[in-house]
């Protein structure tokens, strides 16, 4: 067991972890960030996606100790019910979800894409977002949500 400092959603948290503990467990069980959810456990489905220094990572494959000193973002830090991030707002407007177990991961992936590549084409969106699986099959409206966010971003 060792105590590490994780910077999550703009705040530093002291947390005690075991060497093999994943960032997923540290965020979910240690910090109570319930938007971070295990799906496949092997980095395939994207349900546990968080942004580390602005880039999407599978929290289930990331060791908590190795995330020390980096900036971690979950949807709790992206926006709140009172102040939604434009990406969250676009998903809300387009109903880009069903059961929403995968939604936080998809929103964060979309956020990273839009920040890095505001000129993304439809084909690039489809490709980039294919690391996040939605078993309910909401893909039409997920794509529509991200397109909406992109269009709003461009018009500002």
């Amino acid at each position, binding site marked *: 067991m060792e105590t590490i400092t994780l910077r999550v959603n703009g705040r530093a948290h002291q947390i005690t972890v075991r060497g093999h503990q994943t960032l997923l467990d540290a965020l979910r069980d240690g910090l109570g960030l319930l938007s971070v959810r295990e799906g496949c456990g092997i980095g395939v489905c994207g349900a546990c996606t968080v942004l580390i220094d602005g880039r999407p990572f599978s929290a289930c494959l990331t060791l908590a100790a190795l995330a020390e000193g980096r900036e971690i973002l979950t949807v709790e830090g992206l926006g709140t019910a009172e102040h939604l991030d434009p990406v969250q707002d676009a998903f809300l407007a387009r109903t880009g979800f069903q059961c929403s177990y995968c939604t936080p991961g998809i929103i964060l992936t979309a956020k990273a894409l839009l920040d890095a590549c505001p000129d993304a084409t439809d084909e690039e969106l489809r490709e980039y977002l294919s690391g*996040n699986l939605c078993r309910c099959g909401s893909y039409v409206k997920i794509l529509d949500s991200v397109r909406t966010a992109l269009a709003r971003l461009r018009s500002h």
Partner: protein
Amino acid sequence: MVVRGVRERDAVEKVTGQIPYALNVTLPGMTYARCVRSPYAHARIVAVDASRALSLPGVVCALTRDDLTDGRLFPYYGAAIKDQPIVAIDKARHVGDVVAAVVAEDPETAAEAAALVDVEYEELPAVFDPVEALRPGAPLVHEQIVGHYEIPPNPIIRPQNGTNLINHMKVRRGDVERGFAEADFVFEDVYYSPALHHCALEPHVTVARWEDGQLTVWSSTQNPYFVRDQLAAIFRVPPERVRVLVYTLGGGYGSKTYARMEPLTAVLAWKAGRPVKLALTRAEEFVTTTKHEARVRIKSGVKRDGMLIAREVEIHYNAGAYADRSGTIARSGGIGSIGPYRIPNVKVDAYAVYTNRPNAVPFRGLAVSQVAWAYECHTDELARRLGRDPLEFRLQNLLHTGDRFATGEELEDIHFAELLEDAARAIDYHGPLPAPSAPERQVGRGLAVIIKHMGSNPATTRIDLRLDADGALTVLSSTVDIGQGARAVLARETARALDLPEEVVQVPYVETGTTPPDQGTTSSRSTFFNGLAVRAAAADLRRQLVELAARLYETAPEQVVVRSGRVFAPGAPAQGVPWGELLTGAGVASITASGTFGTQIWVDPETGQGKASHHWHQAAAGAIVEVDRETGKVYLRKLHLATHAGRVIDRPNAELQNEGCATFGLSQALFEELLFDENGQVTNPNLADYMIPALADFPADFSTTLAENPEPDPEVHGLGETGLPAVPPAIGNAVRDATGVRLASIPLLPERVLAALEAREAGTARTNG
């Protein structure tokens, strides 16, 4: 922003990650469970010894069969036949069958302890194929069924001792032999659908707590009341002593129906004397619920003019180790296998068969997707053999309003032809084929049209409406939100029935102590049932408001008008009295109104005659594919799905149901298959090896139709499963159109398509040579 109404509130909680799941439940003193599972498909259990596990620090308790055999508990559960033990008692019946469980202070210790439970097995011969399992002398999965297991009265399910048969459903109409004799052509084909896994991203999660003789269970279940009653039976307590709470489910698709991990978790909490949480691992999910593998032999007699006059179908559904709903799956699939066609002479034999495979349970498109794959490929082949266009051939034989179905029932509100023509238009069926995007690719178009029952049993739903003196209106329902937006629909339908703004209606989560009984959130039934139960409850609420106002204002009930959240009565203020004020004025804290809606359906299991569905779900799909001749890969260029909705309540959520069915359907056509080795072990129990579609797999060109009836208040048709069965055969028929090759088995993997293309080339070469 201002957040209003159930729909928006849920949506905000979803995009901020705050919507509650059973996975989030944490209780003081909570412990964690882990299952011990059989490595053998079929084995007698000689001894179970948990002593090494119990000596591990942090272990709270272990559960073995010894806890089930001393009479304190009723040790079995099951949807129709109570044949599934809480942990294995005499035998393990599939690889992954639960043989013991441990509880520890943390999940890691529980996993470590589970590996220390020593089980001695005596391996038995196993059977995996449903056809083989029915042969005399096949290994018996259950030595005795009738007289051994509790089987609640159910005239449809007829298991047979000394065999692996769970149910044999028959449909008999007309004289099929005479029909074949009178036919000008008779064609027979065999089609196959593999076992699948539901793969909800949230696993099965249950938390159980015993406190003062009361059991409280938080679970990701689609059937809260069923779970309550099964738990009450296990502990031999009245159902009121069991409370089941359900929040949002992280996907279900049938996997969270009936009782899954709730009996084990509740018994572990009982033994531990502490709250217990059990969340299955991804690998465990794959051996907990599967879809029925099915083999379908289908034979049709056609007249020279193209009229279908006879059909014989034989279906074997692989039920796995426990019966669950397989009996009704044989019934629904048996009846559904005739398809949406007018055929006067029909003979169907549908078998649900025990094997040593993991449990097969309801799966979105229940029972029908397997037979639709068969009959819609077969229909295409019939047309081609007759030299007829597949669309025209279908249109010639489709059922219409007023026709009788294979069950003998007269059909109403039938739209197959419109849906099929809509799908044909969407893929430009009569236009020239689009050019291939590469020279090695061939383009083809395919169509399919399907009929599906709603619900599999006589079913009932009750809705309570509670009006409080502060004016709050609460809908109490045990419908589960699986992502379909059930709570939003309840609020909208209630607001509509009472002429209120949607925002004032509250819908709490399911809690069997307060929300009224419901059959379950299955079978695409909830929106339809809830809508009618809400209307009945709204009528009751209006009646109570009228009585209250008549009493308060000392007037005749006929003088009272209830409108838009107010009552108008002689003696009351002219602008009307808000309902809450009426209650306050009358000194009433709250009033509760109830509404119930039920359906009665019945078919004779010997003939399939009767009424099999309150109304029929209807869908058609059209697909354009490109097939790469060199790799065998199928590219889905266009997909259209048309369903009959009757009335659309929430358009985005209704579209999402069709989009979800399209995703499931294309995945079944092209990717998904649960693989087993020769010992019955699943060899792809993870998301790297079991393929579910990503956004890039979904066609860029997708469209959908939600057909509505023009009359003012048409009957709502459920959409949760309706479209799914049409999609795989539409894709299969498009591949046939593109290549000239018919593949009888899904998924249409590149290697299979390539092998079929090569086999045809070889055959052609031989013919030519």
